């Protein structure tokens, strides 16, 4: 009887651990030849061979998503001369090592202007980092995530960008709406080019909706349980996301 109890206990423990230990595997790596790809145990760095960038973007992956799942999206940003660092985390959970973005900043002193971004749970981690170190970053970029009250940034003196998707059932349009009071005041744009003419006299959060997009297509790791069905291709969603990020970073100082 004692042995049976032990088997039941350990089996339950193992099944529970297994259930919470799986990550999403990315698509097979196929990096563009126009990108310099450097991988260390701590991060993946994507840079353009044509320009020496002084602007950097630290990207925090979604929870239990392999960091390589964001290479295909972020190489489009890097091709525009932005140094992109996709941070790698233990167990693929950014919340387990919130000090990493600051270590990366210390390691790369040639970058003058830093931005931080995150998808899903990585966005919450990015918000936490910004709330604790508000002067380190020039802007925060959310992909498929909404701000939480715990790390309220409504008084932050920098701009934010929130890109969300119509068919994202893990960070729904309603949830984005319901939580916008925890970010600087919002402005909605119809297309990325609208940022070229944007003039404001206070920090803002720029909201851009990807029509037909979903949660998993912010990365490249197949479908995700609980998510909606995308009605646009992953490549089209990546094109829209990357061009919006680039516009935001290029125009951020002149808003």
């Amino acid at each position, binding site marked *: 009887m004692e042995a049976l109890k*032990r088997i039941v206990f*350990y089996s339950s423990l193992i099944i529970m*651990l297994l259930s919470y230990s799986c990550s999403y*595997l990315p698509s097979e*790596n196929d990096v563009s030849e126009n990108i310099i*790809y450097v991988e260390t145990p*701590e991060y993946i760095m994507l840079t353009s061979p044509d320009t020496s960038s002084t602007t950097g973007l630290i990207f925090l992956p979604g929870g239990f998503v*392999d960091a390589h799942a964001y290479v295909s999206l972020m190489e489009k940003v890097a091709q525009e001369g932005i140094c992109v660092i996709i941070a790698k985390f233990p*167990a693929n959970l950014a919340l387990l090592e919130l000090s990493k973005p600051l270590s990366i900043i210390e390691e790369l002193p040639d970058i003058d202007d830093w931005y931080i971004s995150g998808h899903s749970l990585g966005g919450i981690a990015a918000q936490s980092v910004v709330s604790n170190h508000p002067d380190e970053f020039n802007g925060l970029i959310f992909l498929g995530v909404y701000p939480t009250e715990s790390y309220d940034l409504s008084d932050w003196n920098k701009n934010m960008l929130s890109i969300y998707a119509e068919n994202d059932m893990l960070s729904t349009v309603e949830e984005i709406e319901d939580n916008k009071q925890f970010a600087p005041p919002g402005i909605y744009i119809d297309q990325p080019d609208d940022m070229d003419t944007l003039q404001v006299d206070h920090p803002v959060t720029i909201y851009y909706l990807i029509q037909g997009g979903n949660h998993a297509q912010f990365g490249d790791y197949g479908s995700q349980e609980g998510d909606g069905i995308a009605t646009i291709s992953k490549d089209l969603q990546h094109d829209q996301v990357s061009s919006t990020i680039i516009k935001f970073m290029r125009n951020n100082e002149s808003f």
Partner: protein
Amino acid sequence: MKVFNSRLLILAGLTIFLLFGAVKLNAQHIQISANYAQGLRYNNNWDLFNGGAELSADYIFDSNDLLFNSGFDLRTIQWGNQLSISLGIAKKNGDRFELGAEIQNGLALFYQRSLYVLGVSIKGSYSLLKMEKMNMGISLEARYSNCPAYKAYGQIYHVVEIPIGLYIRF
């Protein structure tokens, strides 16, 4: 289907391990360990990096001056999380020191399909506290881990680490 098969395989292995452990034998112990792995080398580069944390449970079979162990390890590593089944042998040196070797076979855990991982290590353990039915100590390992299929997804697919651990044996 591949996912189902690989998970089934590892669960079957764990079930055998649990059933085996449920049989009462003389000179059998359970050991629970927690390790932190200090990364030392990835691919062909020497570097100090955070290798990850590990929890392991083993059955230890005591036979004269040799110890045989069989168990499972759940850990974080460069390719995410992995679960492996370990088999090892150690030689007792005096009352408190053990030196041995171990192999680990397992899977890197992904939703779509799990990937095979292999590890080999040499390990030294020192018992800090010996009591009648329990014993606590520290361990130091040198371990090589390889996940060959992960090469298709990332550049770092094999590492050398120094796991440092605490264990309780009862």
